[in-house]
C-alpha cells in the first residue's frame, strides 16, 4: 500500500509536525513578543529587553486614564454580550424553526456584518450617530459593537439549536409546560454550551474591537484599544505593551473559562 500509514506515515507525520509547529510559532510570536516587552526595562521597546521590571505595570495601574478606559471596555463588552444574546436568541429560533418566505435571505442579512468591511460599517454608523449626536456615548459603543458581534452569536446559537432535537421540547410541552416554559426550562439548559459560546464570541469581538470604537470615542469616553491607539500615535511607551498583555490576558482567561465550562457541561459517559 503506497499510502499506508506506516510506510508513508513517518515522514509525513514529521513534515506535518514541523509545519504545524512553524504555523503555531508564527501565530504566537507577536503575543510572546509583546508580553516579554511589557516586562522589559527599556523604555524604547528594545528586544531582547536589557533587563526585567514591573515598572510599566505600576504606571499603568496608577494612571487614571488607562484604568478608566479598561473599565469602559469591560462595561461595553458586557453590555454588548447581553444585547447580542437578547437579540440573537429570538433570531436563532426564528431562523431555525420558522417556516416563512425569505428565511434564507434573513439568515444572509444576519451574517452580513461578517462580510462587509468593518470600515464601511464604521463610517455608516459614525455618520448616523454624528447626526443624532450619539457619538462618544456608551450607547453608541454598544450598538456599533452589537452589529459586528451579532453574526458570531447568531451562528453559534443556530448551530446548537439545529442539533437540538425539538421533540425534547415537545415532550416538555406535553408534560404540561407552556411553550415558553419549555424553552426556558428545557431548551436553554440543553443548548447551554452554544449560548455560552455565543456570549463569549460577542464579548471577545467587543473587547478587542478598535475600528468602530475609534469612530465612536470621545476624549472622555474611550475603550482600552482606543486608548492604546491614541497613545501609540503620541509616544511609544512600554505601558502600551502592558495594556496589550492585559487585553490578551483577559481574552485568554475568557477562553479558558469557556473550555472549563464545556468540559463540565458535556455529559460523562
Amino acid at each position, binding site marked *: 500500500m503506497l499510502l499506508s500509514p506506516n510506510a508513508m506515515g513517518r515522514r509525513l507525520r514529521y513534515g506535518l509536525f514541523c509545519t504545524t509547529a512553524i504555523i503555531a510559532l508564527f501565530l504566537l510570536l507577536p503575543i510572546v513578543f509583546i508580553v516579554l516587552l511589557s516586562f522589559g526595562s527599556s523604555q524604547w521597546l528594545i528586544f531582547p529587553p536589557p533587563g526585567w521590571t514591573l515598572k510599566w505595570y505600576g504606571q499603568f495601574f496608577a494612571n487614571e486614564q488607562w484604568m478608566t478606559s479598561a473599565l469602559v471596555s469591560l462595561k461595553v463588552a458586557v453590555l454588548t454580550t447581553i444585547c447580542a444574546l437578547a437579540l440573537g436568541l429570538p433570531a436563532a429560533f426564528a431562523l431555525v424553526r420558522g417556516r416563512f418566505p425569505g428565511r434564507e435571505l434573513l439568515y444572509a442579512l444576519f451574517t452580513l456584518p461578517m462580510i462587509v468591511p468593518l470600515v464601511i460599517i464604521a463610517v455608516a454608523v459614525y455618520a448616523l450617530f454624528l447626526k443624532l449626536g450619539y457619538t462618544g456615548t456608551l450607547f453608541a459603543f454598544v450598538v456599533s459593537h452589537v452589529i459586528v458581534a451579532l453574526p458570531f452569536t447568531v451562528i453559534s446559537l443556530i448551530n446548537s439549536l439545529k442539533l437540538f432535537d425539538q*421533540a425534547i421540547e415537545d415532550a416538555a*410541552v406535553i408534560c*404540561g409546560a*407552556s411553550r415558553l416554559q419549555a424553552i426556558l426550562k428545557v431548551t436553554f*439548559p440543553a443548548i447551554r454550551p452554544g449560548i455560552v459560546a455565543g456570549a463569549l464570541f460577542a464579548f471577545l469581538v467587543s473587547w478587542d474591537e478598535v475600528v468602530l470604537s475609534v469612530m465612536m470615542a470621545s476624549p472622555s469616553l474611550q475603550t482600552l484599544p482606543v486608548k492604546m491607539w491614541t497613545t501609540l500615535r503620541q509616544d511609544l511607551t512600554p505601558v502600551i505593551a502592558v495594556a496589550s498583555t492585559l487585553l490578551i490576558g483577559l481574552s485568554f482567561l475568557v477562553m479558558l473559562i469557556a473550555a472549563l465550562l464545556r468540559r463540565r457541561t458535556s*455529559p460523562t459517559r
Partner: protein
Amino acid sequence: MSAVITDTSQAAATPLVRLSKLNKHYGDFVAVDNLSLDIHEGEFLTFLGSSGSGKSTTLSMLAGFETPSSGEILVQGKSLINVPPHKRDIGMVFQRYSLFPHLSVRGNISFPLDIRKLAADECERRVEAMLKLVQLESFAHRRPSQLSGGQQQRVAIARALVYEPRILLMDEPLGALDKKLREDLQDELRHLHRRLGITIVYVTHDQEEAMRLSQRIAIFSHGRIVGLGTGQTLYQNPPNAFVASFLGNSNFLQGTLTGNASVQFEQQALAIKPQNLPLNSDVLLMVRPEKAQVLPLDAPTPLLTGWNEITAQVSEVVFLGDSLTCSVVTPGGSRLTVKALPHGQAPLHSGAQVRVRWAAADACVYSEWNAADLSKSAAH
C-alpha cells in the same frame, strides 16, 4: 338500580376520544383524509401503517402539535381543537425517548409534577412509585446519557404516566431498539397496560408489534383507516384486499363468479363462501399460506367436502426451521405460497407436480380491489 345500570352502559357507549371527519392538508398533499374514529376508555389501540399513511399526523393532532385543517376532536364530549397541547392532559412517549438531557432520571420523571406545582411530599411519593413501576429505582440519580436505550424509554414512559394523563400516546416508542429488547419491552408494556387500565394510542409500522400489544388495530393507508378491529379479526377476515396483503402473507387468485358460492378459476370450478354478487363479476380470492395444504399428486388422502383442490408445479421450497415455504405455479401462471410443516409428507422438490388444497370457508372473497394493493404483498 336501573338508573345506575343505564348510566354505566351509557358511559361504555360514549367513547373517551372521538375523532370526527378529521382532515389535514399540507398544500396539495392530503395527510389525513376525512378520518373518523372512536377510542374507548382503557383500550390499547394501535395505528398501523407504512410511513406517510397519516398515522403519526393523526397522533400529532391528538397531542395538539398539529392543527387539523377541518374536523373535530372530542375527549369526553369536549372539543380539544382550541386547547393547547400543554393543557390537554395527555401523556406522550416519543420515538427517540426525548428525555431532558440536563436532568437526572428523577428530575425527568418529576418534571410534569414540578410544572404543576405539586406538593413536595406528594411529588416524591409519585416519583418513587413510578421509579418502582419501571424498575429504575437504583438509576434515579443517573443522567439520560448514562442509560441504555431500553432504560431511557422506560424513563420516558414513567415521565408520561406520573401525572396520570387521560390518554397515553406512543409514537413508535420502540423503533430505535434492537429486536430482542423490543420484544421484552413489548411484553412489559402489555402487562403495564393491562395492570393500570390506561388508554393507550400506539403508533407503529411493525405489524407483529401491533399484534403483540393491541386490543384493537387501526390500519392506515393514504390518510384513511382501511381496517379496524382486533388483530385476529383483521388477519383472519381482512375487510379488503389491501388489509389482506398488508397484514402477513397472502395468496390472491382472480376468478369469475359462476354461482353464489362458486368461482371459475383457470378452467377449474372452486367453491367459495356464499356471496351476494352479480353473476360473472370478477372476484379475488385470498388464501393465507398456512391455510393451504400441499400434497403430492399420488397422495391417497381423500378431498374433504367444502375443500378446493387445484394442481400446480412446485417452483421453490425453502426450509425455515419450524416450517417449510413452498412456492407453486398453477398451469395458468398464478403463483401461490403454501406454508407447510416440514414433516409428515413426502419430500417436495422443485418441478414436482402437486395438489394444493384449502377449505372454502378459509378463503376471503373481494369484489373490489386495486392492482397496487396486491403488488404490495409481493414487495414484502
